[in-house]
Protein backbone atom coordinates (compact mmCIF):
# COMPACT_ATOMS: atom_id res chain seq x y z
CA UNK A 1 0.00 0.00 0.00
CA UNK A 2 2.66 2.48 1.04
CA UNK A 3 4.25 1.92 -2.37
CA UNK A 4 1.32 3.89 -3.75
CA UNK A 5 2.47 6.91 -1.90
CA UNK A 6 6.12 6.93 -2.90
CA UNK A 7 7.97 10.17 -2.18
CA UNK A 8 7.69 11.15 -5.85
CA UNK A 9 3.91 11.05 -5.77
CA UNK A 10 3.51 12.88 -2.47
CA UNK A 11 6.05 15.51 -3.61
CA UNK A 12 4.39 16.12 -6.93
CA UNK A 13 0.98 16.27 -5.25
CA UNK A 14 2.12 18.81 -2.66
CA UNK A 15 4.51 20.78 -4.90
CA UNK A 16 3.39 20.42 -8.49
CA UNK A 17 5.74 21.92 -11.08
CA UNK A 18 3.28 22.30 -13.93
CA UNK A 19 0.11 23.45 -12.21
CA UNK A 20 -1.41 26.56 -13.72
CA UNK A 21 -3.34 28.09 -16.59
CA UNK A 22 -1.76 29.12 -19.89
CA UNK A 23 -3.44 32.14 -21.37
CA UNK A 24 -3.28 32.40 -24.32
CA UNK A 25 -2.92 28.76 -25.28
CA UNK A 26 -3.11 26.78 -28.50
CA UNK A 27 -4.95 23.80 -27.06
CA UNK A 28 -7.10 23.62 -23.94
CA UNK A 29 -9.44 20.92 -22.71
CA UNK A 30 -11.06 19.91 -19.45
CA UNK A 31 -13.12 17.00 -18.16
CA UNK A 32 -14.16 15.10 -15.04
CA UNK A 33 -13.82 11.65 -13.65
CA UNK A 34 -17.51 11.16 -12.83
CA UNK A 35 -16.64 8.36 -10.42
CA UNK A 36 -14.96 10.57 -7.87
CA UNK A 37 -15.54 14.13 -9.04
CA UNK A 38 -11.89 14.72 -9.97
CA UNK A 39 -11.51 17.47 -12.53
CA UNK A 40 -8.56 18.26 -14.79
CA UNK A 41 -7.86 20.97 -17.30
CA UNK A 42 -4.86 20.87 -19.61
CA UNK A 43 -3.46 23.88 -21.50
CA UNK A 44 -0.76 23.58 -24.18
CA UNK A 45 1.33 25.97 -26.24
CA UNK A 46 2.60 24.53 -29.50
CA UNK A 47 5.24 25.90 -31.92
CA UNK A 48 5.15 26.07 -35.73
CA UNK A 49 6.41 22.48 -36.03
CA UNK A 50 3.58 21.19 -33.80
CA UNK A 51 5.93 20.65 -30.89
CA UNK A 52 4.70 21.27 -27.34
CA UNK A 53 6.62 24.20 -25.83
CA UNK A 54 4.63 24.67 -22.64
CA UNK A 55 2.12 22.51 -20.77
CA UNK A 56 0.06 23.20 -17.67
CA UNK A 57 -2.69 21.38 -15.81
CA UNK A 58 -5.24 22.63 -13.33
CA UNK A 59 -8.05 21.11 -11.31
CA UNK A 60 -8.52 19.04 -8.21
CA UNK A 61 -8.30 15.41 -7.28
CA UNK A 62 -6.44 12.76 -5.34
CA UNK A 63 -2.66 12.46 -5.06
CA UNK A 64 -2.52 9.84 -7.82
CA UNK A 65 -4.45 11.95 -10.34
CA UNK A 66 -2.62 15.20 -9.56
CA UNK A 67 0.86 13.68 -9.46
CA UNK A 68 0.25 11.81 -12.68
CA UNK A 69 -0.96 15.02 -14.36
CA UNK A 70 2.16 16.86 -13.22
CA UNK A 71 4.52 14.13 -14.45
CA UNK A 72 2.62 13.89 -17.73
CA UNK A 73 2.94 17.64 -18.39
CA UNK A 74 6.66 17.43 -17.74
CA UNK A 75 7.05 14.47 -20.10
CA UNK A 76 5.34 16.05 -23.11
CA UNK A 77 7.33 19.25 -23.34
CA UNK A 78 9.40 19.04 -26.53
CA UNK A 79 7.24 16.25 -27.98
CA UNK A 80 5.30 16.63 -31.22
CA UNK A 81 1.52 16.31 -31.10
CA UNK A 82 1.80 13.01 -32.96
CA UNK A 83 4.10 11.73 -30.26
CA UNK A 84 1.61 12.91 -27.61
CA UNK A 85 -1.15 10.97 -29.38
CA UNK A 86 0.86 7.78 -29.03
CA UNK A 87 1.24 7.99 -25.23
CA UNK A 88 -0.71 5.15 -23.64
CA UNK A 89 -1.56 3.87 -20.23
CA UNK A 90 1.60 1.83 -19.86
CA UNK A 91 3.64 5.00 -20.24
CA UNK A 92 1.73 6.55 -17.34
CA UNK A 93 2.12 3.47 -15.16
CA UNK A 94 5.83 3.42 -15.92
CA UNK A 95 6.11 7.09 -14.98
CA UNK A 96 4.34 6.52 -11.67
CA UNK A 97 6.09 3.14 -11.19
CA UNK A 98 3.18 1.70 -9.22
CA UNK A 99 0.62 -1.01 -9.81
CA UNK A 100 -2.96 0.24 -9.74
CA UNK A 101 -6.29 -1.53 -9.42
CA UNK A 102 -9.11 -0.71 -11.85
CA UNK A 103 -10.59 2.09 -9.72
CA UNK A 104 -7.38 3.99 -9.08
CA UNK A 105 -6.25 3.43 -12.67
CA UNK A 106 -9.01 5.86 -13.67
CA UNK A 107 -7.47 8.49 -11.38
CA UNK A 108 -4.03 7.97 -12.89
CA UNK A 109 -5.28 8.13 -16.48
CA UNK A 110 -7.62 11.11 -16.21
CA UNK A 111 -4.97 13.65 -17.24
CA UNK A 112 -3.90 11.57 -20.24
CA UNK A 113 -7.53 11.24 -21.35
CA UNK A 114 -8.02 15.00 -21.11
CA UNK A 115 -4.72 15.70 -22.86
CA UNK A 116 -5.46 13.35 -25.77
CA UNK A 117 -9.05 14.57 -26.17
CA UNK A 118 -7.62 18.09 -26.45
CA UNK A 119 -4.93 17.13 -28.93
CA UNK A 120 -7.38 15.17 -31.08
CA UNK A 121 -9.88 18.02 -30.79
CA UNK A 122 -12.64 15.80 -29.42
CA UNK A 123 -15.68 16.91 -27.47
CA UNK A 124 -15.22 14.39 -24.71
CA UNK A 125 -12.45 12.48 -22.92
CA UNK A 126 -13.32 8.81 -23.38
CA UNK A 127 -11.75 5.64 -22.01
CA UNK A 128 -10.90 4.51 -25.55
CA UNK A 129 -8.22 7.21 -25.68
CA UNK A 130 -6.19 5.45 -23.01
CA UNK A 131 -6.81 1.80 -23.82
CA UNK A 132 -3.50 -0.05 -23.92
Amino acid at each position, binding site marked *: MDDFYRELI*IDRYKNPQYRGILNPHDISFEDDNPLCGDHIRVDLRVDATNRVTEANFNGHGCAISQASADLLMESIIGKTLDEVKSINRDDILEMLSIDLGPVRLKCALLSLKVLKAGVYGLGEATDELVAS
Partner: protein
Amino acid sequence: MDTLDVTHIRADFPVLEREIHPGVPLVYLDSTATSQKPSVVLDAMDGFYRCCNANIHRGVHTLAEESTGAYELARKRMAEFIGSPSPRQVIFTRNTTESINLVAYTWGRSNLKAGDVVILTEMEHHSNIVPWHILAAEKNIRLEFISVTDEGLLDLEIYRSLLELQPKLVAFTHMSNVLGTVNPAAEIIRLAHAAGAVVLVDGAQSVPHLPVNVQLLDCDFLAFSAHKMCGPTGIGVLYGRKALLEAMPPFLGGGDMIKRVHLRSFTPNELPYKFEAGTPAIAEAVGLGAAVGYLTSVGMEAISAHEQEIIAYALERLKEIPGVSVFGPRAEHKGGVASFMLKDVHPHDIAQILDGQGIAIRAGHHCAMPLHEKFGIPATARASFYLYNTREEVDKLVEGIYKVKRVFRA
Protein backbone atom coordinates in the same frame (compact mmCIF):
# COMPACT_ATOMS: atom_id res chain seq x y z
CA MET B 1 -24.00 0.00 28.02
CA ASP B 2 -24.37 -1.59 24.62
CA THR B 3 -27.67 -3.18 23.78
CA LEU B 4 -26.30 -5.80 21.41
CA ASP B 5 -24.10 -8.82 21.90
CA VAL B 6 -21.85 -7.76 19.04
CA THR B 7 -19.31 -10.56 19.50
CA HIS B 8 -22.08 -13.06 18.95
CA ILE B 9 -23.47 -11.09 16.00
CA ARG B 10 -20.06 -10.86 14.33
CA ALA B 11 -19.83 -14.65 14.35
CA ASP B 12 -22.94 -14.69 12.12
CA PHE B 13 -21.09 -12.89 9.30
CA PRO B 14 -18.43 -15.12 7.68
CA VAL B 15 -16.71 -12.29 5.77
CA LEU B 16 -15.84 -10.53 9.02
CA GLU B 17 -13.32 -13.31 9.71
CA ARG B 18 -11.36 -12.28 6.67
CA GLU B 19 -7.86 -10.83 6.80
CA ILE B 20 -7.31 -8.16 4.14
CA HIS B 21 -3.53 -8.45 4.46
CA PRO B 22 -1.67 -11.13 6.43
CA GLY B 23 -2.48 -10.47 10.09
CA VAL B 24 -4.65 -7.45 9.25
CA PRO B 25 -8.36 -8.18 9.79
CA LEU B 26 -11.14 -6.56 7.81
CA VAL B 27 -12.72 -3.51 9.43
CA TYR B 28 -15.85 -3.07 7.34
CA LEU B 29 -17.16 0.50 7.56
CA ASP B 30 -19.05 0.66 4.26
CA SER B 31 -22.49 -0.76 5.11
CA THR B 32 -24.21 2.32 3.72
CA ALA B 33 -23.02 1.17 0.28
CA THR B 34 -23.93 -2.44 0.97
CA SER B 35 -24.17 -4.52 4.12
CA GLN B 36 -22.45 -7.83 4.76
CA LYS B 37 -24.58 -10.99 4.79
CA PRO B 38 -25.13 -13.37 7.71
CA SER B 39 -24.84 -17.15 7.28
CA VAL B 40 -28.60 -17.60 7.56
CA VAL B 41 -29.06 -15.58 4.34
CA LEU B 42 -26.29 -17.40 2.48
CA ASP B 43 -27.62 -20.77 3.67
CA ALA B 44 -31.19 -19.95 2.69
CA MET B 45 -30.16 -19.10 -0.88
CA ASP B 46 -27.80 -22.04 -1.15
CA GLY B 47 -30.47 -24.35 0.27
CA PHE B 48 -33.04 -23.02 -2.17
CA TYR B 49 -30.86 -23.81 -5.19
CA ARG B 50 -29.82 -27.19 -3.80
CA CYS B 51 -33.26 -28.42 -2.85
CA CYS B 52 -36.13 -26.84 -4.71
CA ASN B 53 -35.10 -24.43 -7.50
CA ALA B 54 -37.85 -24.00 -10.10
CA ASN B 55 -39.65 -21.15 -11.84
CA ILE B 56 -42.61 -19.81 -9.93
CA HIS B 57 -46.33 -19.23 -10.42
CA ARG B 58 -46.74 -21.53 -13.43
CA GLY B 59 -45.50 -25.05 -12.92
CA VAL B 60 -47.55 -27.63 -11.04
CA HIS B 61 -44.71 -29.98 -10.19
CA THR B 62 -43.39 -30.26 -6.65
CA LEU B 63 -40.37 -28.00 -7.12
CA ALA B 64 -42.48 -25.26 -8.71
CA GLU B 65 -44.93 -25.42 -5.82
CA GLU B 66 -42.13 -25.23 -3.29
CA SER B 67 -40.39 -22.36 -5.08
CA THR B 68 -43.62 -20.40 -5.40
CA GLY B 69 -44.29 -20.98 -1.72
CA ALA B 70 -40.80 -19.82 -0.72
CA TYR B 71 -41.04 -16.69 -2.89
CA GLU B 72 -44.46 -15.73 -1.55
CA LEU B 73 -43.43 -16.49 2.04
CA ALA B 74 -40.63 -13.94 1.61
CA ARG B 75 -43.20 -11.37 0.50
CA LYS B 76 -45.35 -12.14 3.53
CA ARG B 77 -42.41 -11.81 5.94
CA MET B 78 -41.46 -8.50 4.32
CA ALA B 79 -45.03 -7.21 4.63
CA GLU B 80 -44.98 -8.00 8.36
CA PHE B 81 -41.54 -6.42 8.74
CA ILE B 82 -42.65 -3.02 7.41
CA GLY B 83 -46.23 -3.19 8.72
CA SER B 84 -47.85 -3.41 5.29
CA PRO B 85 -51.59 -4.13 5.61
CA SER B 86 -51.24 -6.85 2.96
CA PRO B 87 -48.45 -8.75 1.18
CA ARG B 88 -50.09 -7.67 -2.10
CA GLN B 89 -48.78 -4.17 -1.48
CA VAL B 90 -45.19 -5.43 -1.39
CA ILE B 91 -43.77 -5.40 -4.92
CA PHE B 92 -40.41 -6.99 -5.57
CA THR B 93 -38.17 -4.89 -7.83
CA ARG B 94 -34.43 -4.94 -8.48
CA ASN B 95 -33.52 -2.25 -5.94
CA THR B 96 -34.49 1.14 -4.52
CA THR B 97 -33.63 2.80 -7.81
CA GLU B 98 -36.00 0.60 -9.79
CA SER B 99 -38.73 1.09 -7.17
CA ILE B 100 -38.53 4.86 -7.53
CA ASN B 101 -38.40 4.60 -11.31
CA LEU B 102 -41.48 2.39 -11.22
CA VAL B 103 -43.41 5.14 -9.41
CA ALA B 104 -42.07 7.84 -11.75
CA TYR B 105 -42.87 5.88 -14.92
CA THR B 106 -46.32 4.65 -13.89
CA TRP B 107 -47.89 6.87 -11.24
CA GLY B 108 -45.91 9.92 -12.35
CA ARG B 109 -46.53 9.53 -16.04
CA SER B 110 -50.27 9.06 -15.64
CA ASN B 111 -50.90 11.58 -12.85
CA LEU B 112 -48.54 14.50 -13.48
CA LYS B 113 -49.03 17.13 -16.16
CA ALA B 114 -47.24 20.26 -17.31
CA GLY B 115 -46.74 22.77 -14.49
CA ASP B 116 -47.36 20.26 -11.67
CA VAL B 117 -44.96 20.62 -8.76
CA VAL B 118 -42.87 17.78 -7.34
CA ILE B 119 -40.95 18.50 -4.13
CA LEU B 120 -37.62 16.75 -3.51
CA THR B 121 -34.80 17.66 -1.13
CA GLU B 122 -31.20 18.78 -1.63
CA MET B 123 -29.96 15.68 0.18
CA GLU B 124 -31.41 13.09 -2.22
CA HIS B 125 -29.44 10.22 -3.69
CA HIS B 126 -29.28 10.42 -7.51
CA SER B 127 -31.88 7.63 -7.60
CA ASN B 128 -34.50 10.02 -6.22
CA ILE B 129 -33.48 12.92 -8.49
CA VAL B 130 -32.77 11.60 -11.96
CA PRO B 131 -36.08 9.74 -12.52
CA TRP B 132 -37.84 13.05 -11.81
CA HIS B 133 -35.47 14.92 -14.14
CA ILE B 134 -36.38 12.46 -16.89
CA LEU B 135 -40.08 12.90 -16.19
CA ALA B 136 -39.68 16.69 -16.00
CA ALA B 137 -38.16 16.69 -19.48
CA GLU B 138 -41.03 14.59 -20.79
CA LYS B 139 -43.94 16.23 -18.99
CA ASN B 140 -42.63 19.68 -18.18
CA ILE B 141 -43.32 19.25 -14.47
CA ARG B 142 -41.63 21.60 -12.02
CA LEU B 143 -39.11 20.30 -9.47
CA GLU B 144 -38.59 22.15 -6.19
CA PHE B 145 -36.09 21.27 -3.47
CA ILE B 146 -36.26 21.53 0.30
CA SER B 147 -32.98 23.17 1.35
CA VAL B 148 -30.47 21.61 3.69
CA THR B 149 -29.26 23.80 6.56
CA ASP B 150 -25.55 24.23 7.35
CA GLU B 151 -26.05 21.74 10.15
CA GLY B 152 -27.29 19.14 7.65
CA LEU B 153 -31.01 19.16 8.49
CA LEU B 154 -33.94 19.80 6.17
CA ASP B 155 -35.21 23.37 6.41
CA LEU B 156 -38.84 22.76 7.35
CA GLU B 157 -39.70 26.46 7.03
CA ILE B 158 -38.75 26.28 3.37
CA TYR B 159 -40.75 23.08 3.10
CA ARG B 160 -43.88 24.74 4.50
CA SER B 161 -43.57 27.56 1.99
CA LEU B 162 -43.05 25.11 -0.89
CA LEU B 163 -46.25 23.31 0.12
CA GLU B 164 -48.14 26.47 -0.78
CA LEU B 165 -47.36 25.59 -4.40
CA GLN B 166 -49.81 22.69 -3.95
CA PRO B 167 -47.39 19.96 -5.00
CA LYS B 168 -48.70 16.70 -6.44
CA LEU B 169 -45.84 14.68 -4.97
CA VAL B 170 -43.32 14.97 -2.14
CA ALA B 171 -40.44 12.48 -2.49
CA PHE B 172 -37.70 12.48 0.13
CA THR B 173 -35.08 10.31 1.77
CA HIS B 174 -35.87 9.04 5.25
CA MET B 175 -32.15 8.98 6.05
CA SER B 176 -29.34 10.69 4.12
CA ASN B 177 -26.62 8.38 2.83
CA VAL B 178 -24.04 11.17 3.16
CA LEU B 179 -25.01 13.28 6.16
CA GLY B 180 -26.66 10.44 8.05
CA THR B 181 -29.52 12.81 8.87
CA VAL B 182 -32.71 11.00 9.90
CA ASN B 183 -35.47 13.22 8.61
CA PRO B 184 -38.71 13.75 10.56
CA ALA B 185 -40.61 11.57 8.10
CA ALA B 186 -43.96 11.36 9.89
CA GLU B 187 -44.13 15.16 10.17
CA ILE B 188 -43.10 15.70 6.53
CA ILE B 189 -45.73 13.20 5.40
CA ARG B 190 -48.48 14.70 7.58
CA LEU B 191 -47.81 18.17 6.12
CA ALA B 192 -47.69 16.80 2.57
CA HIS B 193 -51.01 15.02 2.94
CA ALA B 194 -52.57 18.13 4.44
CA ALA B 195 -51.47 19.93 1.26
CA GLY B 196 -52.99 17.19 -0.89
CA ALA B 197 -49.72 15.62 -2.09
CA VAL B 198 -48.83 11.96 -2.52
CA VAL B 199 -45.65 10.96 -0.63
CA LEU B 200 -42.81 8.68 -1.66
CA VAL B 201 -40.21 7.81 0.98
CA ASP B 202 -36.74 6.61 -0.03
CA GLY B 203 -36.09 4.10 2.72
CA ALA B 204 -32.81 2.70 1.33
CA GLN B 205 -30.93 3.78 4.46
CA SER B 206 -33.73 3.81 7.03
CA VAL B 207 -35.32 0.38 6.60
CA PRO B 208 -32.03 -1.47 7.32
CA HIS B 209 -31.21 0.63 10.37
CA LEU B 210 -34.40 1.87 12.07
CA PRO B 211 -37.80 0.41 12.90
CA VAL B 212 -39.93 1.53 9.90
CA ASN B 213 -43.69 0.94 9.79
CA VAL B 214 -45.57 2.16 6.72
CA GLN B 215 -48.84 2.51 8.61
CA LEU B 216 -47.30 4.57 11.42
CA LEU B 217 -45.49 6.72 8.85
CA ASP B 218 -48.63 6.87 6.72
CA CYS B 219 -46.52 7.08 3.54
CA ASP B 220 -47.99 6.31 0.11
CA PHE B 221 -44.86 4.69 -1.30
CA LEU B 222 -41.74 3.29 0.37
CA ALA B 223 -38.75 2.18 -1.71
CA PHE B 224 -35.74 0.21 -0.42
CA SER B 225 -33.14 -2.44 -1.30
CA ALA B 226 -32.41 -5.87 0.18
CA HIS B 227 -28.64 -5.64 -0.07
CA LYS B 228 -28.31 -2.86 2.48
CA MET B 229 -30.29 -4.86 5.07
CA CYS B 230 -28.25 -8.09 5.22
CA GLY B 231 -29.97 -9.49 2.12
CA PRO B 232 -28.62 -10.20 -1.37
CA THR B 233 -28.12 -7.79 -4.27
CA GLY B 234 -30.59 -7.88 -7.16
CA ILE B 235 -33.83 -7.46 -5.22
CA GLY B 236 -35.60 -4.46 -3.76
CA VAL B 237 -39.05 -3.51 -2.59
CA LEU B 238 -41.72 -1.00 -3.46
CA TYR B 239 -44.49 -0.72 -0.90
CA GLY B 240 -47.53 1.21 -2.10
CA ARG B 241 -50.94 2.23 -0.88
CA LYS B 242 -53.44 -0.21 -2.38
CA ALA B 243 -55.72 2.27 -4.15
CA LEU B 244 -52.75 3.98 -5.78
CA LEU B 245 -51.16 0.73 -6.94
CA GLU B 246 -54.44 -0.52 -8.35
CA ALA B 247 -55.00 2.66 -10.33
CA MET B 248 -51.45 2.74 -11.73
CA PRO B 249 -50.71 1.37 -15.20
CA PRO B 250 -48.22 -1.52 -15.35
CA PHE B 251 -44.48 -0.84 -15.50
CA LEU B 252 -42.62 -3.44 -17.57
CA GLY B 253 -44.61 -5.67 -19.87
CA GLY B 254 -44.11 -9.43 -20.17
CA GLY B 255 -44.81 -12.72 -18.49
CA ASP B 256 -46.42 -12.95 -15.06
CA MET B 257 -47.71 -9.37 -15.14
CA ILE B 258 -50.70 -10.26 -17.29
CA LYS B 259 -54.02 -11.91 -16.69
CA ARG B 260 -54.82 -12.41 -20.36
CA VAL B 261 -52.98 -11.60 -23.57
CA HIS B 262 -54.51 -11.35 -27.04
CA LEU B 263 -52.75 -10.44 -30.25
CA ARG B 264 -53.89 -6.84 -30.02
CA SER B 265 -54.50 -6.30 -26.29
CA PHE B 266 -53.76 -7.50 -22.77
CA THR B 267 -55.34 -7.37 -19.31
CA PRO B 268 -52.87 -6.70 -16.48
CA ASN B 269 -52.63 -9.14 -13.60
CA GLU B 270 -53.71 -8.23 -10.09
CA LEU B 271 -51.40 -6.85 -7.39
CA PRO B 272 -48.54 -7.39 -6.87
CA TYR B 273 -47.90 -9.38 -10.06
CA LYS B 274 -48.96 -6.49 -12.27
CA PHE B 275 -45.59 -4.90 -11.47
CA GLU B 276 -43.45 -8.04 -11.59
CA ALA B 277 -42.87 -8.84 -15.25
CA GLY B 278 -40.66 -11.78 -16.14
CA THR B 279 -38.95 -14.30 -13.91
CA PRO B 280 -38.06 -12.43 -10.72
CA ALA B 281 -35.05 -12.84 -8.42
CA ILE B 282 -36.44 -15.94 -6.71
CA ALA B 283 -33.44 -17.12 -4.70
CA GLU B 284 -32.77 -13.51 -3.77
CA ALA B 285 -36.32 -13.18 -2.43
CA VAL B 286 -35.68 -16.26 -0.30
CA GLY B 287 -32.46 -14.65 0.94
CA LEU B 288 -34.31 -11.42 1.69
CA GLY B 289 -36.91 -13.35 3.68
CA ALA B 290 -34.09 -14.86 5.75
CA ALA B 291 -32.53 -11.39 6.22
CA VAL B 292 -35.84 -10.06 7.52
CA GLY B 293 -36.02 -12.99 9.93
CA TYR B 294 -32.48 -12.29 11.08
CA LEU B 295 -33.04 -8.55 11.63
CA THR B 296 -36.29 -9.27 13.47
CA SER B 297 -34.59 -11.76 15.78
CA VAL B 298 -31.88 -9.23 16.66
CA GLY B 299 -34.47 -6.45 16.94
CA MET B 300 -34.57 -3.20 14.96
CA GLU B 301 -34.81 -1.10 18.15
CA ALA B 302 -31.66 -2.74 19.48
CA ILE B 303 -29.83 -2.30 16.15
CA SER B 304 -30.75 1.37 16.03
CA ALA B 305 -29.66 1.92 19.65
CA HIS B 306 -26.33 0.20 18.98
CA GLU B 307 -25.67 2.37 15.93
CA GLN B 308 -26.54 5.48 17.93
CA GLU B 309 -23.91 4.55 20.45
CA ILE B 310 -21.28 3.82 17.80
CA ILE B 311 -21.91 7.02 15.83
CA ALA B 312 -21.82 9.18 18.97
CA TYR B 313 -18.47 7.62 19.87
CA ALA B 314 -17.15 7.95 16.30
CA LEU B 315 -18.06 11.63 16.05
CA GLU B 316 -16.38 12.31 19.38
CA ARG B 317 -13.18 10.50 18.32
CA LEU B 318 -13.08 12.04 14.82
CA LYS B 319 -13.42 15.54 16.28
CA GLU B 320 -10.23 14.98 18.28
CA ILE B 321 -8.14 14.64 15.10
CA PRO B 322 -6.64 17.97 13.98
CA GLY B 323 -7.62 18.72 10.37
CA VAL B 324 -10.69 16.47 10.30
CA SER B 325 -14.10 18.01 9.65
CA VAL B 326 -17.26 15.93 9.81
CA PHE B 327 -20.39 16.73 7.79
CA GLY B 328 -23.92 16.40 9.01
CA PRO B 329 -25.85 16.94 12.22
CA ARG B 330 -25.11 15.92 15.79
CA ALA B 331 -25.44 12.24 16.71
CA GLU B 332 -29.00 12.53 18.02
CA HIS B 333 -30.26 13.61 14.58
CA LYS B 334 -28.50 10.92 12.59
CA GLY B 335 -27.86 7.26 11.94
CA GLY B 336 -24.52 5.51 11.68
CA VAL B 337 -22.91 7.55 8.91
CA ALA B 338 -19.82 9.76 9.32
CA SER B 339 -18.75 11.65 6.20
CA PHE B 340 -15.58 13.61 6.72
CA MET B 341 -12.73 15.51 5.12
CA LEU B 342 -9.09 15.65 6.14
CA LYS B 343 -7.36 18.93 5.38
CA ASP B 344 -5.12 18.79 2.28
CA VAL B 345 -5.76 15.09 1.60
CA HIS B 346 -8.18 13.87 -1.07
CA PRO B 347 -10.80 11.35 0.19
CA HIS B 348 -9.58 8.77 -2.34
CA ASP B 349 -6.15 8.87 -0.79
CA ILE B 350 -7.64 8.50 2.69
CA ALA B 351 -9.58 5.44 1.54
CA GLN B 352 -6.52 3.94 -0.14
CA ILE B 353 -4.26 4.27 2.89
CA LEU B 354 -6.98 2.97 5.22
CA ASP B 355 -7.37 -0.05 2.93
CA GLY B 356 -3.73 -0.81 3.64
CA GLN B 357 -4.81 -1.27 7.24
CA GLY B 358 -7.78 -3.45 6.31
CA ILE B 359 -10.29 -0.64 6.83
CA ALA B 360 -13.01 -0.36 4.17
CA ILE B 361 -14.58 3.08 3.81
CA ARG B 362 -16.12 4.83 0.81
CA ALA B 363 -14.71 7.91 -0.92
CA GLY B 364 -16.45 10.05 -3.51
CA HIS B 365 -19.69 11.93 -3.88
CA HIS B 366 -21.78 8.91 -2.77
CA CYS B 367 -24.28 9.45 -5.60
CA ALA B 368 -25.26 12.79 -4.10
CA MET B 369 -23.48 15.34 -6.29
CA PRO B 370 -25.97 18.18 -5.67
CA LEU B 371 -25.39 17.93 -1.92
CA HIS B 372 -21.62 18.05 -2.37
CA GLU B 373 -22.00 21.02 -4.74
CA LYS B 374 -24.00 22.80 -2.08
CA PHE B 375 -21.23 22.39 0.47
CA GLY B 376 -18.64 23.28 -2.19
CA ILE B 377 -16.66 20.04 -1.98
CA PRO B 378 -16.03 17.51 -4.74
CA ALA B 379 -15.95 14.46 -2.51
CA THR B 380 -15.94 13.18 1.06
CA ALA B 381 -14.69 10.10 2.86
CA ARG B 382 -17.47 8.12 4.52
CA ALA B 383 -17.35 5.60 7.33
CA SER B 384 -20.65 3.90 8.05
CA PHE B 385 -21.71 1.49 10.77
CA TYR B 386 -24.09 -1.41 11.22
CA LEU B 387 -25.04 -3.95 13.85
CA TYR B 388 -21.70 -5.76 13.56
CA ASN B 389 -19.40 -2.77 14.11
CA THR B 390 -17.61 -2.11 17.38
CA ARG B 391 -16.00 0.76 19.28
CA GLU B 392 -12.64 -0.96 18.72
CA GLU B 393 -13.21 -0.58 14.97
CA VAL B 394 -13.82 3.14 15.46
CA ASP B 395 -10.49 3.27 17.31
CA LYS B 396 -8.81 1.54 14.36
CA LEU B 397 -10.35 4.08 11.99
CA VAL B 398 -8.95 6.91 14.08
CA GLU B 399 -5.49 5.31 14.20
CA GLY B 400 -5.75 4.84 10.44
CA ILE B 401 -6.49 8.53 9.86
CA TYR B 402 -3.39 9.43 11.90
CA LYS B 403 -1.42 7.17 9.59
CA VAL B 404 -2.85 9.04 6.57
CA LYS B 405 -1.67 12.29 8.15
CA ARG B 406 1.84 10.87 8.57
CA VAL B 407 2.04 9.68 4.95
CA PHE B 408 0.85 13.05 3.69
CA ARG B 409 2.78 15.02 6.27
CA ALA B 410 -0.58 16.73 6.85
